[in-house]
């Protein structure tokens, strides 16, 4: 089992990144299942015949016997009988014969009806996206915690047709997947024959172990294909699946063009027919775009997230990739709440975002137990971090009217340089260090998270380092990020701290300057280290377009499993054309629709290639 990750990606502070789309934050009930009669639509070898009231018993008997049939039962007093056909006779021919019989009012197949099928997973009652009864979601992390009965993806009738999507490999290109999770282990891709014994590959650490050290990918995977009807946990869109874990984002949820394009190409090369990417960022990235085109050329459907900024992706400056790429195989997904309203955080776009799907308070498989080590820099007392060279102090910061810049105020405990930040400027010729040692023993992964507003002159630097052995991290430590720059406002920053796991992990900030220009400096608030200890039994609620995306990826897998000859075009058409029209999505997506699983399963593409020959 993987316990450590090595990644020193300079995150949002100093360069473009691609980050996952979840807002991170579980409970039980059970419904019974009912399924019968195989998969035929009507009872073979039988028809129902309704005789006219004028047809006497002798005439009825003659009609049936004349065709070589036999009456199985009188179904009511009005002349409706259940008829058994003769050997080798087709239902269609029988119906034609009865249609021409003057004694017959009508004849029809003996249709088969199936109950909507619900699995027995213990927490199924919490999965409002699959069956919205207006239930209250326990541990909801966003409002509303309960919604409108019926506002769901209409999947139970589809489960009467198909629950096994394992013939279609679905690649989760994400933070990896905890392939040992109790509700995922049986549904992971078997890559042993291809040299990938751990169900996928890792393009962060460059090895073949895609164990999730964040949790995001495991949650996404469970929405697509947590084992259904196994009397534990949750179920995915597919009860049986083949999930390929492709790790391209590190423990803090950050990746790069390099890791992601390798991941997409790996998935395509190894047979995935659906790729889920609940991630976004960057710019118009030709390498990334080419990887998606390669997927399309190999008949792969690619489902991606719209993003969680609450903005219109169509507007200049708001474009987010891969959502805003234009390949026909791409489906970009917005998030709906349990009233089927577009969530305020969800991005949208009449030309870039395609469909909506449930994305709030989604319970799914998780990677393990999380914990948070918070630090307020000793407030309200003195700074309790080790310093050298001066410059740093603790204090408080508030927010300006826009909420995007720090001002003097008491809202947050803060680490400041200069001590008067956000007024004044840091010193010239400085080497100001501040650091603290944290106990990260016994965990599998850790990430460093804080909010900062930073303004450092071009000739100066703000460095963020760690050192597993403790002590001054700027002596023999590892740099997480460094250099001059500006955040231009308050930025949320996140770094993978997994290489620092142990009892004596020191983390620090260093401001260095030359003898000339100075700038405003830095203010840091909400400093925390999130830790993760892997297990196989955790489930968690998450919210975001990241959660809406795998609903659609799961549907794509189901459609391709149900219709083995489907192309990517057939699959995309069935998803986009058969959804449920929602006023909330009109003008905000290309389709104006939320996905509807049974409608997509019943959708039929118009015939093509019509020609005629006349003789």
């Amino acid at each position, binding site marked *: 089992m993987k316990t450590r990750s090595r990644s020193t990606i300079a995150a949002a502070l100093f360069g473009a990144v691609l980050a996952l789309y979840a807002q991170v934050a579980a409970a039980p009930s059970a419904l019974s299942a009912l399924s019968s009669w195989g998969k035929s*639509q009507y009872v073979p070898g039988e028809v129902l015949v309704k005789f006219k009231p004028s047809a006497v018993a002798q005439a009825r008997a003659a009609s049936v016997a004349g065709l070589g049939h036999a009456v199985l039962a009188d179904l009511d007093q009005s002349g409706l009988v259940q008829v058994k056909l003769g050997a080798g006779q087709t239902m269609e021919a029988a119906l034609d014969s009865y249609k021409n019989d003057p004694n017959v009012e009508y004849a029809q197949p003996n*249709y088969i*009806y199936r109950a909507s099928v619900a699995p027995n997973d213990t927490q199924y009652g919490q999965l409002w996206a699959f069956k919205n009864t207006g239930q209250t979601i326990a541990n909801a992390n966003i409002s509303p915690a309960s919604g409108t009965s019926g506002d769901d993806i209409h999947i139970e009738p589809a489960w009467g047709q198909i629950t096994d999507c394992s013939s279609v490999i679905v690649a989760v290109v994400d933070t990896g997947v905890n392939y040992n999770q109790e509700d995922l282990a049986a549904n992971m891709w078997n890559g042993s024959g291809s040299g990938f014994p751990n169900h996928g590959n890792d393009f962060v650490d460059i090895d073949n172990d895609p164990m999730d050290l964040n949790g995001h990918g495991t949650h996404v995977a469970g929405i697509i294909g947590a084992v259904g009807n196994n009397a534990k946990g949750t179920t995915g869109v597919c009860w049986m699946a083949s999930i390929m874990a492709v790790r391209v984002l590190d423990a803090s949820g950050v990746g790069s063009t390099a890791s992601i394009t390798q991941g997409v190409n790996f998935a395509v090369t190894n047979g995935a027919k659906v790729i889920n990417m609940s991630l976004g960022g960057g710019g118009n990235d030709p390498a990334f775009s080419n990887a998606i085109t390669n997927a399309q050329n190999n008949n792969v459907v690619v489902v991606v997230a719209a993003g969680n900024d609450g903005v219109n992706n169509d507007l200049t400056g708001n474009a987010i990739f891969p959502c805003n790429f234009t390949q026909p195989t791409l489906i970009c997904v917005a998030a709906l709440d349990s009233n089927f309203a577009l969530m305020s955080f969800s991005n949208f776009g009449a030309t870039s975002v395609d469909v909506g799907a449930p994305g709030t308070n989604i319970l799914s498989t998780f990677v393990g137990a999380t914990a948070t080590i918070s630090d307020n820099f000793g407030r309200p007392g003195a700074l309790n971090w080790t310093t050298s060279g001066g410059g740093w102090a603790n204090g408080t910061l508030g927010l300006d009217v826009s909420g995007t810049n720090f001002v003097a105020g008491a809202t947050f405990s803060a680490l400041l340089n200069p001590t008067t930040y956000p007024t004044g400027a840091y010193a010239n010729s400085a080497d100001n260090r501040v650091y603290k040692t944290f106990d990260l023993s016994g965990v599998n992964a850790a990430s460093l998270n804080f909010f900062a507003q930073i303004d450092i002159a071009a000739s100066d630097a703000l460095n963020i380092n760690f050192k597993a052995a403790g002590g001054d991290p700027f002596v023999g430590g590892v740099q997480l990020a460094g250099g001059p720059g500006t955040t231009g406002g308050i930025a949320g920053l996140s770094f993978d701290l997994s290489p620092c796991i142990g009892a004596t992990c020191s983390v620090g900030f260093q401001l260095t300057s030359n003898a000339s220009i100075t700038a405003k400096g830095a203010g840091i608030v909400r400093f925390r280290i999130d830790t993760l200890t892997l297990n196989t039994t955790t489930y968690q609620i998450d919210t975001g377009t990241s959660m809406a995306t795998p609903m659609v990826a799961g549907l794509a897998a189901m459609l391709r499993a149900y*219709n*083995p000859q489907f192309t990517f075009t057939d699959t995309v058409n069935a998803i986009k054309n058969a959804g449920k029209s929602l006023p909330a999505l009109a003008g905000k997506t290309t389709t104006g629709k939320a996905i509807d699983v049974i409608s997509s399963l019943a959708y039929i593409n118009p015939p093509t290639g*019509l020609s*005629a020959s006349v003789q």
Partner: protein
Amino acid sequence: MKTRIRLVALIAAGWIAGCGGGGGGGSSPPPVPVTDHTVTITWAPNREKGVNSAGGGYHVSISGKPTIDVAFNGATTPTSTTTTLQTGTYSVAVTAFAALDNQGGATGSVSAPSQTLAVNVP
């Protein structure tokens, strides 16, 4: 006055065609004989499971004619049909159908029509 002359001309042409030929005196074009032709209509197979299994198939619509049903025959769903059409121009379109409906029942679903094909029967 010009309008009236045209109307007369059209009526005359119709009368000649309706006569099915005849002497064709003077400079009038020869009448077009009405004859039966065998017409085979083909299309690409749909890839939906439901179209290619029990309860599935195609409806072939030919203007002025009853719809032709091409149903799953127990092994395959044919993608052609042959019919007899008389001289004329026909609009042909095909829809695909399956038993599964969008509620999970068996009342059936039908596709949108194919692009319409104009068929000229000489």
